[in-house]
């Protein structure tokens, strides 16, 4: 790594970077924060003179995170709905199950959970969610094979609203098919799902699920989803793996979308509400 440091400092007038900063910069790069953001973080930290390097870096990193509330919003009057979106294989269906489990176990609520299987495209996606719903004893709603996902969403909302008079403690979790942000037809399909639900009950959260080992492409994903469906929160998955999830910081910083959950495994309980502190420790971990 000697050359790397030498050449970068030669090029970018960084002859005065200490070895410690250089090492941290590499760590940030390895955590997928990207070159520009890593550089910014280092520059800001260097400007802090009254703290040791690690403390300085930590506080600068924290400064790049939002200070707003990371709680899920809830419909005060009627049915609350959460729509789960993201690229293929990022962990949407598993997260849908985890989210349900989270709502049930956060005892303050007396939550009734309904799962809507709106991935009508991928093979066995519906039965995958059904299995999770059975495991967690959740109400499971699906449509006909290859049905229009917006139609499934529509009847799911209608179903719940007509069956229960007061739906203020009811949550509808909508699992959608994985789609690449670059596929405009599929993104339009997602917009339609949201429009449809919104006509019946507010969509309280659109949660974008991002694989924690995603590289710089994560930013492109978030930008496009954000532009089309107004994402309200990020979920960072597979954080039990080797990815550090640094791209989420880049997303939160640039698009002002708060990270709301960290997912750390394949079972329903492997979910943590986001903690800035823990996340930063992880980013800096070798």
């Amino acid at each position, binding site marked *: 790594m000697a050359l790397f440091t030498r050449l970068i400092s030669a090029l*970018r007038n960084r002859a005065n970077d200490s070895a410690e900063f250089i090492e941290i910069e590499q760590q940030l790069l390895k955590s997928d924060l990207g*070159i520009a953001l890593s550089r910014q973080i280092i520059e800001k930290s260097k400007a802090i003179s009254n703290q040791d390097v690690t403390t300085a870096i930590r506080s600068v990193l924290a400064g790049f995170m939002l200070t707003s509330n990371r709680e899920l919003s809830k419909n005060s009057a009627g049915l609350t709905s959460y729509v789960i979106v993201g*690229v293929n294989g990022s962990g949407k269906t598993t997260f849908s199950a985890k989210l349900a489990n989270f709502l049930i176990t956060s005892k303050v609520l007396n939550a009734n959970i309904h799962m809507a299987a709106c991935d009508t495209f991928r093979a066995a996606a519906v039965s995958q969610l059904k299995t999770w719903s059975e495991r967690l004893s959740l109400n499971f709603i699906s449509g006909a094979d290859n049905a229009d996902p917006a139609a499934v969403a529509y009847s799911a909302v209608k179903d719940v609203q007509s069956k229960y008079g007061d739906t203020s403690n009811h949550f509808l979790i909508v699992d959608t098919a994985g789609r690449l942000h670059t596929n405009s037809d599929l993104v339009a399909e997602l917009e339609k799902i949201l429009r449809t639900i919104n006509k019946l009950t507010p969509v309280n959260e659109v949660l974008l699920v991002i694989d924690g080992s995603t590289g710089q492409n994560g930013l492109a994903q978030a930008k496009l989803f954000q532009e089309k469906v107004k994402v309200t929160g990020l979920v960072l998955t597979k954080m039990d793996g080797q990815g*550090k999830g640094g791209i989420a910081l880049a997303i939160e910083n640039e698009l002002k979308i708060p990270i709301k959950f960290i997912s750390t495994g394949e079972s329903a309980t492997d979910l943590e509400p986001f903690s800035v502190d823990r996340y930063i420790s992880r980013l800096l971990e070798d």
Partner: protein
Amino acid sequence: MFESLGQRFTKVFSGLRGQINETELRNIQAEITAALIDSDVSVNVADDFGSAVYRKAVNQLELLKKSINPYASVFEIVNQELIQILGGNQRRMQFAKKPPTIILLMGLQGSGKTSFAGKLALHLKSSGNTPLLVAADLARPNAVDQLKIVGEQVNVPVFAPAAGNGVGNPVLVARDSINFAREKLHNFVIVDTAGRLGIDAALINELILIKKEINPTESFFVLDAMLGQSAADVAQNFHAQVGFDAVVLTKLDGDAKGGAALSVVSKTGKPIIFSAVGEKTSDIEYFYPDRIASRILGKGDIATLAEKTAAAVPQDLTEKLTEKFVSGADFTLTDFLAQLGAMKNMGSISKLMGLIPGMNPKMQQQVSGLDDAELVRTRAIIESMTPAERENPEILNGSRRARIAKGSGRAVSEINRLIDRFSQAQKMMKQMKNNPGKQNLISKNLPGLPNNFPAGLNMNAPQINSNTVANKRKKSRSGNPAKRALEENL
């Protein structure tokens, strides 16, 4: 994907002029390293890459200083490094001496193994094979169902004796599938396994057992093209503990820069064999490292261009030109005219531009003026020539040129320019024939579109028209008839 990295590289080099020295080389090294990291190549691999380029360039600095265009030579060093990382030659699938050929798929959760299994099965089946899919992902809810449905979609049988959702032993399923395939005479077995982390010791152990039990002909590591820095370590974990022969790159239809693929190949030394480019079961492609390398460097991808145009260019024309090339006969203006006719069918030139070698952005801009109108003019000029003149442009003296100018309604200078360009192209074809390894050198000097177009078109893509002469000459084939039949079918 990869194109944006190419643009970055081109940008690094496009601004460079004048004296070359160590500082300049350091700058190039830094810029290249940064471009790689921005494209998700792991920091270590990017660093090694940049250092290697610097080292090789600085070793021949004295030589470079004397050269007319030293930066082109450095660019060539980058090219060589890239080709070396990507593995140079295309990796073809290996086949078992005694069927069935067993293919084991492994990778992280959500990387796309099951979809790829379906695509590979369809691909094999449509080339006359009898694949069997094996449901050995018994962990993820309804993964067995998913494979069953995928099997139905591509009309390939699925071996799924265990229920899944945590019930059943994947090692036993994999083992039994091989016996089943033997009995039922399936010549390929594709084993789909559960996604797992490279650091999950228990699950990695399970994979080791599966591999031991079935002794696969090919083990493929399935990699999501959108992965970031961790890809290198993950792949190394799989490779060191389980071992694989080649990499399958998925989700290439997105806009990922694909650097993870470079890290993985560089770290494990295993080449990319397939890429998956969409959600349809037919969205699978072989991976051609040399094509990708030249696309990254903005050197164009003649082979893909040829594929894109294959439909537009009549087969007999292609064959005729290939034969000429192989036999050493002259490429004449008659051939050129025929090619121009074919080009008319190919649609917008500017769209094809990125695929042509030597097209840096500036040249692209210049040539983008070369619209259909210019093609029409070029045609008019050639059509005003006698057949003898078309076969033997050397006989075109002043008075002949004046006649052609009049006949086509163009200035004599235009005739001269066309003849010049043409004879350059002709010369290059000969050079390429005599020294195929120097293609890079030549393509860098290609003056413009129409002259190099026909030559390159047929030269670089012999593997596409499977019955061309060049193809028969070039490919080495198995001596075992059964195996050869398989190879050819694939």
